[in-house]
C-alpha cells in the first residue's frame, strides 16, 4: 500500500491499513501535518455550524470526536464556549431560535462526551466573561474539545510504523506508473536527495489541497480530484486572554471566534479562495484586521492583547463553482480512479480534522473489500501511542525531577509515552535543559522527536513540541534546537544553524502581519540579536 500525504487523512489511512496487517509505505513531501492538518483551529468539534446544511457531517463529527477521546484522551482539552446574542429588534427571537438549534445539537453531545448547551442571562454572560461589551438579550454555552492536529498526525504515523508501516517525510513522489498489476512509485528525499522506488498494489492520494498535483504525477486527470482550496488563518496571542471561547461575527456576518487553546489564545478563522503556492502559505495584515475587528466588537480587550504570531493553512474543500466559500460542503469523498483506467488508485478529497478517523476507515474498508476482506477497522478502539493508560503529570514531575509545567505539557503531547521521553534525561546534560522556556520544551523531548517522531529539522521539532512558537518567537531556543538536531542526526553544525535560521525567518514572516506595539519591541530585539550573532 502506498499512501501519499502525511496529514490526518494520510496518516489515518496508513494507521488503519497497518493495523489490519497490510504493508504500508507513506510518502510526505514536507513534514507530517505540514498543511491543513497542522494549521487548523485545533478542535475536534462537533460541527455545529453544519447542522443546518449538512446534519450528517455534524453527526459523524460528534461520533468520531467520541472515538478520538477514547484512543487519545491525553490530547484533548475541554473548551467551553459562550455565544452572546445581541439585544436588538430580533434579539429575543434569535435567542429562542438558536436555543432550539442547540437543542438539536444536544442530541449529538453524548457521542462526544460533551455537556448539553445551557441558556444563560445577559447578566450571567457578563459575570462569566467580564470582558464582553454590548447589550445582549442573553446567551448560550456549549463545549467543544481542543486538540493538537500535528500531534494527531505524528501519533498516527508512529502507530502505523509500530505496526510495520514505513514513513518517509520530506520525500516527494515524482511519478507513479502502472507496471503489470502493480504501481511503481518513484520518490525523492528533498533533504538528502535519496531516491526511493517501491512497488505497490494500491496507491492512495491523501494530499489535501495538493491532490490535483499529485494526481498528475500518476497521469490521472487532475479535474477528477478537483478541490477548491480555501485559505484560513489564525492569530495567536501570548496567553489565555478570556475564560471561555467566545463566538463573534465578522463584518460580513461570518462566524468567527476567540478561544483559549493549549497555553495561548487564538482567534480564527478566515475562509478565502486560495490561488497561491501551497508550500508557502502566509497570512496578511488585512486578514488579521478582519479577525481582530470582528472579535473586538464584542471583546475589545483583544486589541490590547499581545499578538505573537499567525498561522495559515489551506482547506481541501470539495470543488464547486459559483458558491461562497462558507457555503461549500465539508464532506469528504473517495475517488476511485478505476474509471480513469487506473485500477487500485484512490484519492481522498475533502474532509475535516474532526472526522478524519472515519474518513480513513471508509478508505481502508474500500481497499480491504478487495484485498483483505477478513480484516476489520480497529482504529477507534486501539489507543494511539500514549493513550494506553492515564499518567499523572505531578507524579512524573516528582519522579524525574522536572518542573510540573514541563511535565504537564509533555503528558499533553505524549500521554503514557511521556515516560519514554523522560527516560532520555540521564543520557546527556542537554536532555535536562529547558531549551524552549515559553512552552516549555526539554532537550529530552527534542531528542525524542528526532529519534522517534521523524523530526528532521528545527521546524519539524516545533511542529511536534510547539518549541519556538511562544512569545519570544524562537529567539531563545531556535539556535540551540538546531545544535541538538544537528548533533542527533550527525549533521554539520552549520546545517543546524541554517535550519534554525530558516525557522526564524519563517516565524518572523508569520508574525509580521499581526505586529503590535509590544511585539514591535520584541522584533527590534530579534533584529539586534541576529546582528550580534553575525547570522543576519
Amino acid at each position, binding site marked *: 500500500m502506498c499512501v501519499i500525504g502525511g496529514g490526518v487523512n494520510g496518516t489515518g489511512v496508513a494507521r488503519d491499513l497497518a493495523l489490519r496487517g497490510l504493508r504500508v509505505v507513506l510518502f510526505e513531501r514536507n513534514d507530517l501535518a505540514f498543511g491543513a492538518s497542522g494549521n487548523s483551529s485545533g478542535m475536534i468539534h462537533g460541527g455545529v455550524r453544519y447542522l443546518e446544511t449538512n446534519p450528517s457531517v455534524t453527526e459523524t463529527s460528534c461520533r468520531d470526536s467520541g472515538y478520538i477521546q477514547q484512543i487519545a484522551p491525553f490530547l484533548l482539552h475541554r473548551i467551553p464556549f459562550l455565544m452572546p446574542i445581541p439585544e436588538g429588534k430580533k434579539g429575543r427571537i434569535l435567542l429562542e431560535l438558536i436555543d432550539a438549534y442547540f437543542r438539536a445539537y444536544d442530541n449529538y453531545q453524548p457521542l462526544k462526551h460533551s455537556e448539553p448547551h445551557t441558556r444563560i442571562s445577559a447578566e450571567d454572560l457578563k459575570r462569566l466573561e467580564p470582558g464582553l461589551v454590548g447589550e445582549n438579550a442573553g446567551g448560550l454555552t456549549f463545549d467543544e474539545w481542543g486538540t493538537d492536529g500535528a500531534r494527531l498526525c505524528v501519533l498516527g504515523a508512529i502507530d502505523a510504523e509500530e505496526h510495520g508501516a514505513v514513513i518517509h517525510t520530506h520525500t516527494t513522489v515524482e511519478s507513479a506508473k502502472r507496471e503489470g498489476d502493480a504501481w511503481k512509485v518513484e520518490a525523492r528525499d528533498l533533504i538528502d536527495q535519496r531516491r526511493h522506488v517501491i512497488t505497490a498494489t494500491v496507491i492512495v492520494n491523501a494530499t489535501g489541497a495538493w491532490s490535483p498535483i499529485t494526481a498528475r504525477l500518476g497521469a490521472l486527470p487532475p479535474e477528477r480530484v478537483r478541490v477548491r482550496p480555501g485559505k484560513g488563518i489564525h492569530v495567536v496571542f501570548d496567553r489565555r486572554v478570556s475564560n471561555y471561547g467566545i463566538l463573534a461575527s465578522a463584518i460580513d456576518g461570518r462566524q468567527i471566534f476567540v478561544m483559549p487553546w493549549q497555553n495561548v489564545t487564538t482567534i480564527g478563522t478566515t475562509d478565502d479562495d486560495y490561488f497561491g503556492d501551497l508550500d508557502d502559505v502566509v497570512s*496578511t*495584515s488585512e486578514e488579521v*484586521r478582519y479577525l481582530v475587528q470582528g472579535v473586538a466588537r464584542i471583546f475589545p480587550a483583544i486589541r490590547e492583547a499581545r499578538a505573537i504570531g499567525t498561522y495559515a493553512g489551506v482547506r481541501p474543500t470539495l470543488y464547486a463553482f459559483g458558491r461562497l466559500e462558507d457555503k461549500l460542503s465539508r464532506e469528504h469523498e473517495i475517488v476511485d480512479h478505476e474509471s480513469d483506467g487506473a485500477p487500485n488508485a484512490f484519492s481522498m478529497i475533502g474532509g475535516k480534522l474532526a472526522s478524519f478517523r472515519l474518513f480513513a476507515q471508509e478508505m481502508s474498508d474500500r481497499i480491504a473489500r478487495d484485498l483483505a476482506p477478513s480484516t476489520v477497522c480497529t482504529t477507534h478502539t486501539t489507543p494511539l501511542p500514549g493513550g494506553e493508560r492515564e499518567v499523572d503529570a505531578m507524579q512524573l514531575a516528582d519522579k524525574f525531577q522536572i518542573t510540573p509545567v514541563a511535565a504537564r505539557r509533555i503528558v499533553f503531547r505524549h500521554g503514557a509515552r511521556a515516560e519514554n521521553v523522560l527516560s532520555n534525561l540521564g543520557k546527556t*546534560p*542537554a536532555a*535536562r*535543559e*529547558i531549551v524552549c522556556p515559553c512552552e516549555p520544551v526539554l532537550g529530552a523531548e527534542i531528542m525524542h522527536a528526532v529519534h522517534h517522531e521523524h523530526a528532521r529539522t528545527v521546524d519539524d521539532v516545533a511542529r511536534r513540541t510547539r518549541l519556538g512558537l511562544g512569545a519570544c518567537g524562537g*529567539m531563545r531556543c531556535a*539556535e*540551540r534546537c538546531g*545544535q*541538538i538536531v*544537528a*548533533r542527533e542526526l550527525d549533521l*554539520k*553544525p*552549520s546545517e*543546524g*544553524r541554517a535550519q534554525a535560521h530558516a525557522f526564524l*525567518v519563517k516565524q*518572523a*514572516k508569520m*508574525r*509580521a*502581519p*499581526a*505586529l*503590535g*506595539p509590544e511585539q*514591535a*519591541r520584541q*522584533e*527590534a*530585539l*530579534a*533584529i*539586534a*540579536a*541576529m*546582528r*550580534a*550573532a*553575525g*547570522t543576519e
Partner: protein
Amino acid sequence: MKVVVVGSGAAGTAAVISARAAGADVTLVRGRAGASALGSGALDGVIDDDAKSITSALELHAVGACSVATSAGTIRKASGHDLSLLDLDQVKGPVLVARVAHVAWDADALAAAFSENDPRAFVARDVGIVLHTDERAMNHVELAARHDDPARLSRAAERIRSALEGASAVLLPPWLGAAAPRAKELSALAGVPCGEVLVPIDGPAGVRFERARDRWLQNARIDAKPGRASRVSEGKVVLESGEELSCDAIVLATGGVLAGGIVYTPGEPSTFALSYDAPVQLGLDGMPLAVPGSMYGVPPESLVWPGGEGLERVGIVSHTSAIRTCGDCASSRPRTMLEALSSGARVGRESAR
C-alpha cells in the same frame, strides 16, 4: 552652556561625557534600561575619534578589528569588543572551550561549530568553575557577578590552568564580571588569554556598560535625574514627575523602537510616534514620514525582518541648534553601539558650544 541630555544609554552617556569635556553644565535624565543595556559587547561599524574618546573614558572596550566567537556557534568580525570577550585574532593555537555544568552551555556543540569553518582547533574539556548546584541553572549575569569576587576568579584560574593541556587560549561562558570586565585579570592568573563567548541578548556586557557608565557619572558628579521626559520644547524639558529643567541646549538620546523611545502603533495613520511630546519630526531613511494611503497605517509586513527593517530605519529627522538627536532615535543611522557612542559624542560636543 547648560545642556540637558535625555536618555542614559550609550548615545546619551557619550553626549554627557563630551559635553562635560567641552565645559558644559550637564544634567542627565535617566530613563529605564534600553538597547545599550541589552548590548552584546561587540562594536560594529567605523571607529572614529569621537567614539574613541568615549571608549577610553568608559574603559570598557578594546577598539580595533577583532574576531569574536558567539553562543550561536559563529565566529564573526567586529570593530571592537567588550574587554571580557575573547579576541580570536590574537590567538594562534588550539582554543580550549570550557565544559562547565550549566544548562545553557554546551561546550562540545560550540567547539564543533567553531571548528567547522575555522583553522584553529577548538577542543572542549571539563573546567570546574561551577561551584554550587544552584549555579547550574543560574542566569549568566548573576554568574558574571559572582566572578567579580577576586577569590572566585583566582579559583577559576586554577581550574583553567589544570585543564589547559597546551591550549593557547580559553573560551568561557559569559561570566567574566558584571561590575567590570575581568578577563584581563583572569588571563594574567591563568597564564593564557581567557575570554567570553558573545551572547546576543542576555549576556552581562550590557550590565557592564551600565556599571561603567554609572562609575563615570559618579566620578564626574553629573546631576542625573531619574525618570522619563514627558514634554520637550526649546529650552525646557518637563519630566513625568512634573519637574521642569531649563537649559540652553537639549540632546535627545531616547532610543528607537527597542528602547521604547519610538512607539509603533498599528491601526493608526501615524504608525510611528515618539513616546513623549517634542517639536521634532519623524522620518524614514532621513525623509519625513509620508501620510500612508491606508487608514490602518503602514502595513507591518513591509517593516519588519526579514525583508524590510523599517522598525530600525524610523527616527527623528529634524535638527535645530536647540534640540539635537543621537543614537537609535535619530533616523537612518545603523543601530549599533559604536554609532551611538560616536553620534552621542559629536552631538554632545556641538551642544556645549
